[in-house]
């Protein structure tokens, strides 16, 4: 908890976490604050007016509703993908780093392959083969399954560094098996690092979803920030100056990712004192 106190002293952290909380509150309570409806309420691309202060889309739907739904979807996918990627990456990383030897080499090779082959490409290939049934959950799972490699690498470096620490060696000598050592001794030690990594994975998940939806391979049944942008592009809103079609979504994506990066950087600053002024 001393850690939390230190974090709260950093203006970067406070700013980042406030931004993030703001978006989460919007996502969770948005439907109660604003009326959210997917029905047609007016003319195609009507400019912002009255209570529709973000204007209407090309199907006459209210952008405020779309944004709130979109925010919920994007956060959901980001979180889902982040959790899956962090869990896989952490365990691959810890196991490889701890075991060393040929297990490590094999896992390393496996990880490196996933790092080098662009996950975006894999996303395209998988998504395009599902011409129906593309849900948020499916996309979240796919993103999670394809973007864990960076986490694995980072965690492995940490893990192989601490396996020489005394309390680990002691546990080994006491005959504890590998799984127990990982869960009981290594994981708590790396908890703060894994949390930082998790934040980055969530950010990356949100961006991946926006990217894949942007090109039309996103969820088919719901609205997400990426699909809003895709729609804006496809209907030529971009060129016609219909700013409300894409500016709000771009701002929100930027704000979320920026907030997450701020949190991550400030945490780095607290954990690694050399980076402080």
């Amino acid at each position, binding site marked *: 908890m001393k850690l939390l106190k230190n974090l709260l002293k950093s203006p970067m952290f406070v700013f980042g976490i406030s931004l993030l909380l703001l978006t989460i509150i919007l996502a969770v309570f948005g439907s109660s604050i604003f009326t959210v409806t997917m029905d047609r309420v007016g003319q195609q691309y009507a400019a912002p007016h009255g209570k529709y202060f973000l204007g209407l889309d090309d199907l006459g739907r209210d952008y405020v509703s779309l944004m709130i739904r979109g925010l919920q979807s994007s956060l959901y996918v980001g979180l889902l993908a982040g959790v899956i990627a962090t869990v896989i990456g952490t365990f691959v990383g810890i196991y490889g780093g701890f075991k060393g030897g040929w297990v490590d080499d094999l896992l390393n*090779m496996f990880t490196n392959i996933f790092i080098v*082959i662009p996950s975006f490409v*894999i996303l395209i290939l998988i998504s*395009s083969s599902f011409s129906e049934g593309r849900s948020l959950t499916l996309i979240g799972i796919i993103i999670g399954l394809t973007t864990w490699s960076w986490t694995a690498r980072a965690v492995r470096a940490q893990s192989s560094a601490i396996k020489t620490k005394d309390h680990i060696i002691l546990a080994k000598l006491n005959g504890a098996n590998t799984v127990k050592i990982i869960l009981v001794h290594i994981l708590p030690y790396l908890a703060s690092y894994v949390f930082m990594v998790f934040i980055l994975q969530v950010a990356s998940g949100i961006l991946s979803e926006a990217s894949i939806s942007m*090109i*039309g391979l996103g969820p088919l049944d719901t609205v997400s920030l990426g699909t809003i942008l895709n729609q804006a592009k496809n209907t030529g809103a*971009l060129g016609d100056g219909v700013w409300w079609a894409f500016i709000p979504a771009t701002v929100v994506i930027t704000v979320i990712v920026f907030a997450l*990066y701020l949190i991550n950087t400030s945490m780095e600053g607290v954990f690694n004192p050399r980076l402080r002024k």
Partner: protein
Amino acid sequence: MLKKYPTLRYILQRGGWYFITFIIAVTINFFLPRLGNNNPVDIIMGKASSGLSTEAAREKEESYLVEFGLVKKVKGEIVRDELGRPVKSSSFEQFVNYIKMCFMGDFGTSFQKYPKKVLDVILDAVPWTIALQLPTIIFGWIIGNVLGVLAAYRRGIFDRVFFPSAMLLSSIPFFVFGMLLVYCFAVVWGVFPAMGGYAGDLVPSFSWAFFSSAGYHYILPFFSIFLCLAGGQAIGMRSMGIYELGTDYIKYAQWLGLKGNRILGYIFRNAMLPQLTGLALSLGTMISGALITEMIFSYPGLGMAMLTAIQNNDYPVIQGGTLIITVSVLIANFTVDILIGFLDPRVKAGLQMGKGN
């Protein structure tokens, strides 16, 4: 013999690994789209068979099946089952066939632009992509890192203004920034064109009019990618630079009375090595982001080609495109790896002393 040339051994080692990765990538590239169990010929038949008699439709379907390598053939004759229908070849046979075709440079035929070959579609688009992405990534990396070192060395006001703006820039995805730039500069202020690689009424040629139009259309996409990339590099380099400033050898350099610029050079030369490694790791993401940016600008590169293919379920082009993208990323990664091998004496030494990776 190989022991005498550690650099050569390093190159061969890395090359070998990349080759294995390439094989895996090609395999994944082939099998993933088939997860969804869709038959591409059915899609194409939907368009092509309207107005044809059943017999003609069946013949057409068979010819497509052959063309897309989906049926078994023995001595050039279609193998048929007891009902006279062609026997579909197994996935493995299709795969082997695919590899054979790739070696002959035939990556299949586009559905949407039938009978245009996938290779031709890609070759039309690739020069545009390379022209946009190569300079952007190289300059973005160099300039971003130089700014980062400067920020690390001369902290203070430069740092307070520079750091938050770089941070913001680096969080914005390229294509998002691209959209903002289009809105500001193309729509509101009308200074730059909003889309295309060149003016609509021109045809690609070696004329001044064409090149100047292409250059004009180049600027917004270039800056979309360049600014965000440089911002990200600057942030990373700044951290690395601050770290290097605390090292013994920099303190010693200061004690020896070396000039400030020389010390900056020392920091850069050392900090750029992990930055290069970081570049290699993020190349895949960078190139993907740049491709989406191309789509925003309807820039006639690989990005647009992929977008059109996806929107039209043009599987051969999608597959060909992803293959090219993956191979390019692999080649780029390999190049950076070799570069690191040459630039970091510790890598060479590590190999000389027989240490593993």
